[in-house]
């Protein structure tokens, strides 16, 4: 595995997790750590082993090898103490449609030992967190898909866990609800909650996660911040110059700017490959400022996680 920033002082430590289903090795020695207050993302395509990994982390699934320790407590399928500190938001809607939101939360809260006024207070708090306080008495089967997703998250937050695990919580959700869910997670993370987040949506990982683990074929192939991951693949920035006029002359002058690797003349103007393009903007503007060239715009595109995934695995993220 390529690791750009090993964690230290971690709340969750996962070491060498392994799990096979028959001949299929679903998880092959995955290790990572999540710090307090950190949002850690597991990014990978469907079938990469993300859900199997977090199922073992949450103590749902027996593991063939490895350890999971949360705040000093081992987490296993039989340990109760470790699981008490985890809030799980499964990919499937883990709520009962024939119960209303409050009944769902009350049931799950009691399973975690909550009761009385404390439970009432927590139910009210999480319903407010996900914006369902006005629909608490409504049967879940009457909820929209987005509302169900939000209640699903609320159930994971109810007992004030130290670590919230979310398994692709926005799958099948409309853009508006998706944004509401992501905002909720951002608020929770901003409040100091450690979050372990799995997704195959690059944009979500970039938006939410402090650090990202790239998962493919049951392995964690790389981890780090977005910038660290981009550096790992030596990514080039894509610069697009919208211009008209003497584009050939302009291309010659731009090519002489240090850091510019390639320049092509295209229909809309010029397209450049450069390292650290954001720092070259002033020099590029000077090079383009010449008679006979009319520049209308410059756009810098840094490499994204899609490119990182492609660079590390040779596959597209949505393969």
């Amino acid at each position: 595995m390529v690791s750009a920033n090993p964690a230290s002082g971690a709340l969750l430590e996962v070491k060498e997790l392994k799990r096979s289903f028959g001949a299929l090795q679903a998880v092959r020695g995955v290790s990572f750590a999540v710090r307090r207050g950190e949002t850690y993302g597991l990014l990978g395509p469907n079938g990469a082993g993300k859900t199997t990994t977090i199922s073992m982390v949450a103590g749902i699934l027996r593991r063939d090898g490895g350890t999971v320790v949360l705040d000093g407590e081992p987490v296993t399928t039989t340990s109760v103490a470790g699981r008490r500190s985890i809030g799980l938001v499964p990919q499937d809607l883990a709520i009962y449609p024939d119960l209303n939101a409050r009944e769902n939360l009350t049931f799950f809260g009691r399973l975690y030992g909550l009761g009385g006024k404390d439970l009432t207070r927590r139910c009210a708090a999480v319903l407010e967190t996900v914006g369902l306080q006005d629909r608490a008495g409504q049967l879940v089967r009457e909820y929209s898909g987005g509302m169900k997703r939000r209640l699903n998250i609320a159930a994971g937050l109810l007992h004030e866990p130290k670590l919230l695990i979310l398994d692709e919580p926005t799958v099948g959700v409309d853009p508006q609800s998706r944004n509401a869910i992501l905002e909720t997670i951002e608020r929770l993370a901003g409040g100091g909650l450690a979050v372990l987040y799995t997704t195959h949506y690059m944009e979500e990982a970039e938006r939410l996660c402090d650090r990202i683990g790239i998962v493919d074929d049951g392995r964690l192939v790389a981890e780090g911040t977005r910038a660290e991951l981009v550096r790992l693949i030596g990514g080039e920035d894509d610069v697009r110059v919208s211009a008209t006029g003497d584009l050939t002359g302009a291309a010659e002058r731009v090519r002489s700017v240090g850091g510019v690797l390639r320049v092509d003349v295209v229909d809309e103007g010029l397209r450049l490959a450069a390292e650290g393009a954001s720092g070259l903007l002033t020099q590029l503007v000077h090079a383009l400022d010449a008679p006979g060239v009319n520049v209308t715009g410059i756009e810098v595109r840094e490499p994204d996680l899609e490119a990182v995934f492609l660079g590390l695995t040779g596959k597209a993220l949505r393969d």
Partner: protein
Amino acid sequence: MRAVLLIAWKDLRQRLRDRSFFIYGVAAPLALAYVFSLLLGPLARGVPDPPTIGLVDGDRSAVSAGMRSLLGAVQDAGVITWREVEPAAGAPAPAYVSSAATDGLAGDARLEPVLSVYPDPASAIEGEAYRELAARELDAAIVVPVGLLEALGREPATVRVLGTTNTLFGTQLAETLVDSFLARLRAGAWTVAALSERGGVVLAPLVMAQVASAPQPLVLVDRRTSERQLDLVTYMAAGMAVFFVFFIVQMGVAGLLDEERDGTMARLMAAPIGRRAIVGGKVLASVCIGVLSLLVLWGASTLLMGARWGEPVAVLLLIMAVVAAAAGVLMAVAAFARSAEAAGNVQSIVAITLGVLGGTFFPLPEAGGALSLLMRVSPHFWFLRGMADAAGGGVAAALPDVLAILAFAAVAGGLGWAAFGRRLTR
């Protein structure tokens, strides 16, 4: 235990809210049982009222008093009701008459019932009896002739049975009683004959009167428990109830697989509770629903259909046991199923097969061999047999059946418990 109760309570609330409990547990079994009872209407009315037999006692002697004594004893056993009919002349009505003659009682002691066709001009005291037979106030009448006691040992006398073609059962019963009575008189005749041969002084009428009025030898022995039968309405109600309770319990047990399918199992398994608590909660909910549905059916079929389930304690024991058996066998099936749908299909097949084998739709004959063996594999069989046993013998009689069901529950439930435990810790 707290987690078990929490999960059970949640399940109960869901089942009541989605109305599946009412549909499968109450409405469907009641409707089916009612339809069955209608289809089998004549039989469903159960044992007919005992026939009413009239006694026309023209003799009023100690001998005819023996006849009364016999009729009283049989009435006490609930087989007939009888009453006196005043000897009176009247217009004869179409009837058939069975005459049991006392011919030769004092001689060779032969007794041959004779069937003859009325009118018999020799008799004129049964007019009122004919009228009541025609009015269907009587099913049969026994006519003891005037001077029977005096005639015994000297000349033939005739005790007649009157009946109609509409009351053959009562008439035949009356004939049987008269035969029985005359057989005692015949025994008395043998006694008289024997004493006469030895030269003793015998007052034949006196001996015959003593024989006739001696305590009745009739002893009604309660049938063996295994031979007891439920009336058809009760049988159908209980059969449908135990048949459907397997489907009710199936819903609860299959809830484990539903939780897997719907994703809620992941949250349950992530909670700080033991895996066995999840299984335990589901089973407890299933048992509660099953017991509740059987209690409802018990009460409803009693009130609405006139079913007689018998000794309450025995019935309660049978209900608890059969629900436990249902939970056990259905849990074992579900534990090996890949999905809730697959489990539902197999569970339905198992429930129907066990129900048919157990005789819930119709009583199966105890013909011995493989069928008898297969019948005993079904908890339905033991439940219905326990009901029949309890109907006549109470709790003690039903206990072997309860134990048989519990043994079934233990084996199937143990298998299911172990398999589900392994499934949830995979």
